[in-house]
């Protein structure tokens, strides 16, 4: 009787539920207004990327020739009947094309990061864990990739593979994703290596070794989760870089094949009319800017949330 009463009392005293690192971080993230704005923009972008083409008033390649001919053979301005954001010179609805572009940007954002994780994390983990010669070899290889001009490499890759199945897959996008991915894993690899080097000297790793945990489990269960914060931040901040890289490539005509258009190629097409119809450049540019701002704010917020020690030091 007394013991059960005592334990009930104890249970009542204990209010704070068991909180892990992630829940704590989530709480801190929610308190950061810019991060919330970023999160909102990112979620909107993802939503539009996934469902956008369903919401779009027209298919991205459908031409409204009648309207174009009636409007004097040029792009329709924003606010035209049936075309909120206007059309391009071929009568294709700009909103529909932007929404299709959102899908491309979202897939760039995530597929490139998957490629980066698949290459960067194992290389960094192996280098950091084994050290010595392995480390030297992998890090010099990383340096070589780092020193190589990214854009040139991607252009060469696209040209070399343009005619193959791989180059044609997903309207030419797969090639771009992989090309951007294999030039940008370097940062993550270095970061993971640094985390490994710092964490493998910690006592809990020694303790794990002392109870006979295998190397692989130490790396995956003990080291990576502890080093996850900076890696997540680097990946989130890598997303705007990837979106920008894709837009840049599209602007110079590499990547997605017409009639599909990414935001970069929309700008490239639109700039011919920049004096008479600036909306063809402005709207895709705004879209790119919002996406970049969203991911950057979210990344900054995540950095503060995952590393409380950094707080207030900037």
């Amino acid at each position, binding site marked *: 009787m007394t013991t059960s009463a005592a*334990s009930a009392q*104890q*249970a009542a005293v*204990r209010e704070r539920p*068991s*909180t*892990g*690192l992630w829940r704590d971080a989530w709480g801190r993230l929610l308190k950061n207004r810019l991060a919330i704005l970023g999160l909102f923009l990112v979620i909107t972008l993802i939503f539009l990327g996934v469902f956008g083409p369903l919401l779009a008033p027209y298919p991205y390649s459908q031409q409204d020739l009648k309207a174009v001919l009636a409007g004097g053979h040029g792009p329709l301005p924003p606010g035209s009947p049936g075309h909120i954001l206007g059309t391009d010179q071929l009568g294709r609805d700009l909103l529909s094309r932007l929404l299709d572009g959102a899908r491309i940007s979202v897939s760039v954002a995530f597929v490139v990061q998957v490629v980066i994780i698949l290459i960067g994390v194992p290389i960094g983990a192996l280098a950091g864990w084994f050290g*010595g010669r392995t480390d030297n070899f992998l890090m010099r290889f990383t340096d070589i990739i780092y020193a190589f001009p990214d854009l040139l490499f991607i252009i060469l890759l696209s040209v070399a593979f343009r005619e193959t199945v791989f180059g044609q897959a997903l309207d030419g996008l797969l090639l771009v994703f992989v090309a951007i991915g294999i030039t940008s894993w370097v940062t993550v690899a270095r970061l993971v290596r640094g985390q490994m080097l710092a964490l493998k000297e*910690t*006592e*809990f790793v*020694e*303790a*794990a*070794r*002392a*109870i*006979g*945990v*295998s190397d692989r489990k130490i790396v995956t*269960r*003990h080291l990576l*989760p*502890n080093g*996850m914060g900076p890696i997540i931040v680097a990946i989130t901040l890598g997303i705007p870089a990837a979106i920008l890289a894709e837009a840049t490539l599209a602007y110079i005509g590499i990547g997605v094949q017409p009639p599909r258009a990414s935001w970069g190629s929309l700008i490239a097409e639109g700039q011919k009319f920049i004096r008479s119809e600036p909306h063809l450049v402005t709207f895709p540019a705004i879209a790119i800017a919002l996406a970049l701002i969203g991911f950057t704010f979210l990344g900054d917020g995540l950095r503060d949330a995952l590393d409380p020690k950094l707080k207030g030091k900037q």
Partner: protein
Amino acid sequence: MSGADDTMTEPDAPSIIEVSPDDARRVQTPTEPRAESGHKADKLLTVRNLSTHFFTPDGVVQAVDDVSFELGYGETLGLVGESGCGKSVTALSIARLVPNPPGRIVAGEVIFDGIDVLKMNDDEMRHLRGKEIGFIFQDPLTSLNPTLTIGYQIAESIRQHMGLSSAAAKDRVAELLGKVGIPRAKDRLNDYPHQFSGGMRQRVMIAIALACDPKLILADEPTTALDVTIQAQILELIERLSDEFHTAVLMITHDLGIAAGMCDRVNVMYAGRIVETATVDELFERPRMPYAWGLLDSLPRLDDVRGDRLRTIEGLPPLLIQPPDACRFEPRCRFARDICREDEPELTQRGDSHYARCWATQPDGWIP
């Protein structure tokens, strides 16, 4: 043949081959005394001429140099000495956890339960660590992984070594947490280390060390990071559980009070060597090495005059790079004579199982 079939189908007859995880657990339950016949050797642990060196840019640091000792089943052995005398490296060498590079065990034998640990391959070694040898580290604040729950970290070695189902492992973890004195153990399995105090975390470390019912626990200054009252509780806990589990303990400490309270025997280490070994009573009553006197003399005493300075051993332990062929304590020794500077004394007998490494206290020495 039919008889064999019968036993196979008979539900009550336990088959040797089919051991359910529950049965396996029952066999391993620590409260049952280990069968005396299970001993594979006279001594649980025999360390012979162990030398562990660290290869640094400045030279070879002989952290542990020609150390030999034995530890019986269920016995508690103290390893005392100042910082940097090779106590921890000795313990790490036994479990082969010396960081390599720069460290390497360059010579010697470590016979654990009849098997030479230094000849084991990596898989056998992993099986030994955690299963047969438990480790309690100095600082419980940093020895637990902050991103994993307490329950997971205790269960880790159970899953690794006992092959229990996760439900059975969970029961065992709760039982262990209860044994080390954590109230409402079941509710706390999903807590993270930061929700535990220092003393509680050291209790968790003890639970991890005992999780698989090991034969030996290497306790590397288990109470140094804790305050005095918690220290006493933790020591009492280690003592009680090692009795209950019939586990031998190698207790590393620089606190002679702890050694006096817990150990059966004590090895005094200085500069990588054992300089004196005796039973606790012998060592405290008749220490035969000036270093041991110094250590004992450094203990604060109740009858000390208030305001007096605490007594210390002047100087620092020597650098262990190319130590000279001389008594290593000689530079700090008040009784040193020429012979101490010219030749290093051997570990020689001073009494029944009492050995010391000192010219002065040898039968023909100048200290009676």
